[in-house]
């Protein structure tokens, strides 16, 4: 009986050992897989962040340029409204002043818009490379 019990204890211990070995092998294999997955995700994240950091000055500049251009548009609207109001009132002098004010905005507005369009298109081109 003692010998049988000892043998059973040995068999049970061998099973436990085999389980532990299997668990270790499985964990190591899984770790290798996870590491390769992580390295892919981390590499893509690092690349994307590099891309965004590289265009950060343009992002900041575009936000303020767009706001400035919006202000020019507000001034343009005010000049157009003033011109029409003067026209309706039959005040040619006021109409001419409004038209002159609006014309003065044109050069700056066009140049700013063209600059913003170029920067925005360049940034959009760069951002297109981030699509997964």
């Amino acid at each position, binding site marked *: 009986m*003692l*010998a049988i*019990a*000892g*043998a059973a*204890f*040995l068999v*049970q*211990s061998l099973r*436990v*050992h085999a*389980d*532990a070995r299997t*668990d*270790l092998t499985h*964990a190591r294999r899984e*770790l290798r897989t*996870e590491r390769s997955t*992580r390295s892919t995700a*981390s590499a*893509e*994240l690092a690349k*994307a*962040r590099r891309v*965004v950091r590289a265009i*950060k000055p343009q*992002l*900041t500049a*575009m*936000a303020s340029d*767009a*706001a400035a*251009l*919006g202000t020019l*548009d*507000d001034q*343009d*609207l005010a000049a*157009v*409204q003033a*011109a*029409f109001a003067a*026209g*309706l*009132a*039959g*005040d*040619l002098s006021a*109409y001419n002043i409004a*038209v002159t004010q*609006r014309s003065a905005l044109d050069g700056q*507005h066009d140049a700013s*818009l063209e600059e*913003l*369009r170029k920067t*925005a298109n360049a940034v*959009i081109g760069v*951002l297109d490379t*981030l*699509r997964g």
Partner: protein
Amino acid sequence: MSQETVARRERRHRRRSTTLLVVTIVAAVVAVACVGAAVVVRADSADVRRQAEPVHRELRDVAANAVDAERRLATLRASSREATSALTALLTAFAAQVDGANQAVDAANQAVDRYNNGQASVGDAFRAVGDTAVVAVKERTAAVDAAVAAAESALKALATAGG
């Protein structure tokens, strides 16, 4: 019963006792050997489990980091898509405002031409062209303001997501 028979029985009894003793000793040795081997195997199993412990811990860390990297990458890509569409909308809004302003200028020029040709007074000439063009410029300028606000927000979010 003869003396010879008694002696034979005793010999047979001694042989059985000896055999039983030998079997018992062998069984005890086998039992002790099995237990000894089992103890060694169990100790080795504990070593293997100890080796697996840091691997499992690292596996959890690696998985958590991978999930975090994927989440941040997804956020960055979403911000990028939003910034792209906000910039596209912004350029469209500016272009529409320019078109609207040009139409208003055309309308004003028509009115002035009518006045210059002596077809109407200044006021009548402007009343004839109406205020449709001015209303359009007003609406498109409001659309520009909204597009500027959306672009500012999207660009800021992208810059933040980029780190």
